[in-house]
């Protein structure tokens, strides 16, 4: 079946008109007014990757301190800040901003067949607010007053009595910034997926990636509030003397853990589901066929979304829970394996009954299969309460979550990068360097983290800055540290490959992988109007199932930034909506909100006084700018009709 390409219909000048309408301002101040999803998506990806590198540096420092017993390279104060900022950076400043926000914001509108993401200014605001939160955490570290109570900052240790100063405040407010950012993007993505899909893209024909982003966005909506509540409670205990967690006056330390993990567990699925989406997308392309088991996979994604909220207490098995509670959460934690297993079997079947072309993105997906699976299986061990009583809070758990997070998110991320970077930059990445990157990283990762299973079994707890020679943990720790060298080398190769390819790589063209989803129907890199002709869709893989004369959408205005809004279930056209153009208000509002949030760490009146500039900037944002006449009253809806 031939792959359909966009064909120029006799609309001379359309490209120029669209380019002018959708143009984003240039120059220094122009950068702060950009509201196009491709720019914001790239910013999320680049910024989060930088924080990934920074978090990696911290990890290398930790591994250096642990390379031998009683090493005196790093003392306990700095070490505690290192593992806290490492964990917080990787989870809050890298994994979610990259997997959900970066990939989501860039790919989703393209895959829907529309010209921009819904609520473009909210999208831009979400980026700026994320950056401020990220800087807040790291400024604390550089000022030697960094967060140091662990990435989940249990009370009472993180509370006012045991962590004086601003350390936990930086952490708690970083949470607020990054969660507001994620929630903003969740609203944008949910609306885009539910209402901006191309005509013909019914729910049943939606690419798996869109299903996954939809489920992830809903998870964000229900999970993030929990961490906002608990981090605000911590902040209030520390700044205005509330007593939420003080047992002597009725507070409760386990309340913190429940609220935190009610967020914390869905959080890891918020990171993992985007990865499975990349896997489903890439496997289909490189097995040259539709994914096997679309319905079971979509069901599994939705099921994981629900079940993700039912397992949080498995982080608390060692607290002395009632037995019935422990049993329920063990059962739920084992049950949540099933949807992921279903996806694994469907991916295997796709390859088994397809034609495997093992290009670079697919190599990383195989890496994911082999690495994540180890993490998933050690998770089965952790789900078992008696076993968890032994290995909880040891290096066994550290091994487990690095296998599921690196195997389960980082490997698919690199696969996704090799897959979509040609679309973003217009150039293919170097194949040989990509393979070197893979093998260096694969070897280094397993060397470092497989050995940690044994350290945990032999009694080494987490978060220890040193250990004595008599514990006999030295050899394994040395091995684990050596792995860092390989991983670092691999990543450096990747960075070199990226810059070299961007400058001199082979031109990619619109669809170098012969893929089926709509983002591959645009030039590489895509213009700001995304599609010259808005597409319609005939099947689950839009380009593979496009008719030779697949209709295009006409009648959407080209002189204003207008998109077509379709209905949720059938994607039937409903109305046309004008999106806002470039605006400085998202940036200014982000500054105002940042001032209020940061001020409130130092004084409770910060919220009150800081609210004033926030209100001003929000008014600027929301005040209507009528540059195109809209009718006073809505017109009667006309049926969209097919014309030849």
């Amino acid at each position: 079946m031939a792959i359909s390409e966009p064909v120029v219909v006799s609309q001379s000048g359309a490209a120029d008109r669209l380019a002018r309408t959708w143009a984003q301002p240039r120059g220094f101040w122009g950068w702060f007014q950009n509201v196009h999803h491709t720019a914001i998506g790239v910013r999320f990806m680049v910024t989060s990757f930088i924080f990934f590198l920074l978090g990696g540096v911290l990890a290398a420092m930790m591994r250096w301190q642990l390379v031998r017993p009683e090493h005196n390279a790093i003392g306990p104060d700095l070490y505690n800040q290192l593992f806290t900022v490492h964990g917080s950076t990787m989870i809050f400043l890298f994994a979610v901003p990259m997997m959900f926000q970066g990939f989501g914001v860039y790919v989703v509108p393209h895959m829907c067949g529309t010209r921009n993401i819904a609520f473009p200014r909210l999208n831009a605001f979400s980026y700026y607010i994320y950056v401020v939160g990220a800087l807040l955490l790291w400024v604390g570290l550089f000022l030697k007053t960094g967060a140091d109570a662990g990435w989940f900052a249990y009370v009472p240790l993180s509370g006012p009595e045991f962590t004086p100063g601003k350390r936990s405040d930086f952490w708690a407010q970083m949470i607020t910034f990054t969660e507001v950012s994620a929630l903003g993007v969740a609203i944008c993505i949910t609306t885009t997926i539910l209402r901006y899909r191309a005509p013909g893209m019914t729910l049943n024909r939606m690419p798996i990636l869109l299903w996954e982003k939809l489920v992830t966005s809903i998870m964000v909506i229900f999970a993030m509030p929990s961490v906002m509540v608990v981090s605000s409670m911590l902040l209030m205990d520390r700044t205005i003397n509330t007593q939420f967690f003080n047992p002597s006056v009725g507070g409760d330390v386990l309340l913190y853990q429940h609220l935190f993990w009610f967020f914390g567990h869905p959080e890891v699925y918020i990171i993992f589901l985007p990865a499975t989406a990349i896997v489903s997308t890439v496997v289909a392309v490189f097995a040259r066929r539709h994914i096997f088991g679309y319905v079971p996979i979509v069901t599994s994604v939705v099921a994981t979304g629900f079940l993700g909220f039912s397992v949080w207490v498995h982080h608390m098995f060692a607290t002395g829970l009632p037995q019935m509670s422990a049993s329920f959460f063990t059962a739920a934690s084992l049950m949540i394996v099933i949807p992921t297993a279903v996806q694994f079997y469907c991916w295997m079947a796709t390859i088994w009954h397809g034609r495997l072309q093992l290009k670079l993105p697919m190599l990383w997906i195989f890496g994911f299969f082999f690495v994540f699976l180890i993490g998933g299986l050690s998770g089965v061990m952790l789900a078992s309460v008696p076993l968890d009583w032994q290995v909880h809070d040891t290096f066994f758990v550290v091994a487990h979550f690095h296998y599921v997070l690196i195997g389960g998110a980082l490997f698919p991320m690199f696969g996704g990068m090799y897959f979509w970077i040609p679309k973003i930059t217009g150039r293919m990445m170097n194949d040989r360097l990509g393979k070197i990157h893979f093998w260096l990283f694969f070897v280094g990762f397993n060397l470092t983290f497989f050995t940690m299973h044994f350290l945990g079994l032999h009694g080494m707890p987490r978060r220890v800055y040193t250990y004595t020679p008599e514990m006999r943990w030295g050899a394994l720790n040395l091995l684990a540290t050596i792995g860092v060298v390989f991983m670092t080398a691999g990543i450096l190769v990747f960075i070199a490959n990226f810059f070299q390819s961007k400058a001199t790589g082979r031109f990619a063209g619109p669809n170098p992988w012969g893929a089926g989803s709509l983002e591959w129907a645009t030039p590489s890199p895509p213009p700001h109007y995304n599609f010259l002709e808005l597409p319609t869709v005939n099947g689950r893989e839009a380009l593979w199932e496009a008719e030779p004369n697949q209709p295009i959408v006409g009648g959407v205005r080209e002189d204003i930034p207008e998109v077509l809004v379709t209905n949720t279930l059938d994607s039937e056209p409903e109305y046309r909506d004008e999106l806002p153009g470039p605006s400085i208000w998202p940036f200014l509002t982000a500054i105002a909100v940042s001032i209020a949030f940061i001020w409130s760490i130092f004084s409770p009146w910060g919220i009150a006084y800081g609210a004033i500039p926030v209100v001003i900037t929000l008014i600027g944002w929301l005040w209507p700018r009528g540059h195109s006449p809209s009718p006073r009253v809505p017109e009667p809806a006309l049926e969209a009709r097919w014309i030849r």
Partner: protein
Amino acid sequence: MIGFSRVPLLAAGVFASYPGDHSILHPAGPQASNIEWLYWVIFWIVFVVYVVVVLGFMRAGARTYTSADEMLPIMKDEAGDRRASWAVGSAITITVLTLFAVLVMSEITGKKVEGETSKNPVTIQVIGHQWWWEVIYPDPQADQTVTTANEIHVPVGKRVVILTNSADVIHSFWAPSINGKRDLLPGYSSAFWLQIDQPGVYHGQCAEFCGLQHAHMGFSIVAEREDAFSQWKAQQLKPAQDPTELVTVHGRDVFLSHACVMCHTIRGTDAGSRLGPDLTHIGSRQMIAAETLPNTPGALAGWIVDPQRIKPGNRMSPNPLQPDDLQALITYLQTLK
């Protein structure tokens, strides 16, 4: 830092080597043994699963691999998909059954581990502090209550219940060779059972991050024969031996006239503060500073003079003593067996 001697506890008939056993795979009692059994069962199950799935992916890749450079046309394999439906369905069924089996075995093991209770256990209260363990053997009569720190003695073969609490932040009591861990939560007290069947010393360590010296918050459990245990307990009940020699009297005076009394108790003297570990029988312990240093004169001296060098951030302030004062103090403390 440490080159320490292995000190045989001849009185207890136990060869004690520090640190004691500390591996999940070297159980010394029924709780840890049950968990170790479960570990191996689940390990082999997941090992087989891993091998099968990895082979599956490798076979899937190998049988359809093509090295073509350009992207090939899209294909369909409806017959293959029908076969695959059966295979996937079977695989899911096996997965569900396997997970169910894991669930059942976990439940059984959990009940066994929690079920090792008794109506007449040895009761011990463990209260977590930053960064040491307060160990109390409670008794309705106050003068029958043993208070010590960091070194827990239990009789072999008898059920022991630990009542947990914390004086400050969350800690976690974990001796891998004995049982899983139990968090020590401020505001909560829970009952945690254990039993040790082989005499020996077993190492434990705090397993919930608790601040600057979390890495140096160890404890040991000394399991000894019943008679040796009773002997130990009786000795611990006694107040501190009155010093008789000149040097030990001087040592006690040093103790009582310096900052030591702000935090430490030595029963039989006026020192009664409970901020720090009870030192009434410090001479009888194998290690000091929560399993960080051996209980030797040199280590003790280094610890007293500058605890911040060994455990930076801990609550004990430096005590720059004159050499003869220090010598006397150490001699005195070593007599407190």
